[in-house]
């Protein structure tokens, strides 16, 4: 049981919140930051979460852009693009390996070289 004033309050709340929601979705949508904060690679072997910010930050692993974005020179770092721009999901060759091979080579190679970070499948890929 409720009074008419309480009913009007709920109507008012619903209308106000609907307006806020419309404005929020229309004008304040989340856009991917550049450079990205994190990247989730989806594959049949499960997802792999890559913390881009931690790898690049001075307080993290302090990697320069060129250490992963291997085609860039120092003055081109601000033009770094996604790995998927060149590495196709299905096709690849010796010069431009397909996406999964490129990512595996990049991640495992670096982790092995530095002696840090996961190198086994189940230390990156998550099935749920």
């Amino acid at each position, binding site marked *: 049981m*409720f*009074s008419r004033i309480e009913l009007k309050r709920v109507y008012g709340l619903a209308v106000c919140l609907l307006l806020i929601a419309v404005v929020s979705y229309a004008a304040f949508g989340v856009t991917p930051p550049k450079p*990205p904060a994190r990247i989730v690679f989806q594959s049949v072997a499960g997802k792999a979460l890559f913390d881009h910010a931690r790898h690049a930050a001075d307080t993290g692993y302090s990697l320069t852009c060129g250490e992963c974005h291997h085609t860039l020179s120092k003055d081109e770092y601000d033009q770094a693009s996604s790995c998927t721009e060149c590495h196709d999901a299905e096709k690849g060759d010796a010069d431009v390996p397909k996406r999964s091979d490129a990512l595996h080579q990049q991640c495992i190679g670096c982790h092995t070289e530095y002696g840090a970070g996961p190198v086994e499948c189940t230390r990156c890929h998550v*099935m749920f």
Partner: protein
Amino acid sequence: MPEHQKLIVSHAPFWHNCNRVTDRSRDIFLAALPAALFGVYQYGVSALGVLALSVSSAVLWELAFTRVAGRPVSVGDGTAAVIGLLLGMMLPASMPWWGILTGTFLAVVVARQIYGGIGANPFNPVAVALAILMLAWKGRMDFDAALVNYPFDFPAVYHLTAVKAFGTAAIGDVSLGDLLLGRQIGGIGCTFGLGLILGGVYLLVRGVIRWEITLSMLAGVALTAFIFNQVDPAKFASPAFHLLTGYTLIGAFFLAPEDPSSPVNFLPMLIYGAVIGSVVVFIRDIGVFAEGLPYAVLVGNLIQPLVDKIRPKALGKVV
């Protein structure tokens, strides 16, 4: 009064204890606000949009259904708004609008109104909606993927997924203070443990929720997690971790004690809460999902009519 009378009882005198549904809804709303507002602070305007759309659409779904079904308008009691708020708090801040509209439709119409409205739902509406959303749009409900574009000043990994996949070494740096103060990712209103506890204590003090259900559920989580942790500490997380991550606190204070879908007698309440708490940890530790609370609440709701038959207490007193 807009609300029709559902029950006709007899034999006066009766004493109204001044406990009104609207007041209870207001208390629950207020209790949930600290954690919800922290979510807005943490995730920004997008979280506000999710919460606002969830509350408003829940109210509008209920209004639309009662109109179509020719029932009296019932949104004035505030329960639909509470359902919307709780569901919104458990969603990621990046949830698209159509996912929220679907979720609130499932909660308000499918899980509650078609059973007869307030007091008639056998399952917790929020748990029903959340369980379906988690099954239907796994990627949207995966906090690692859903929150990938939100920068944080702490390791932004969904802890329940991390510990399930990589063992307790993956959460070695996580302190209980971080979990209490919201330095974790998750549902909009589920990360600020301290806020949820404060809200829950407020509800307990106000008598809105039953302490038997809340405490037995938390005890069920803690005891089951403790046993798993003792069996293999490298694989299974500690009780404190399970208590302060995921949906545990919002489930213990806001979902499990929901009136229509929970028992009314003392012993059944203890069993009901303990079962939910145990199933949560079983699903997290050896199930196929990283988070199991919505399913655990549904299991509890399922056994609720049965456990309520244990040592039933006669109403009233013959002198």
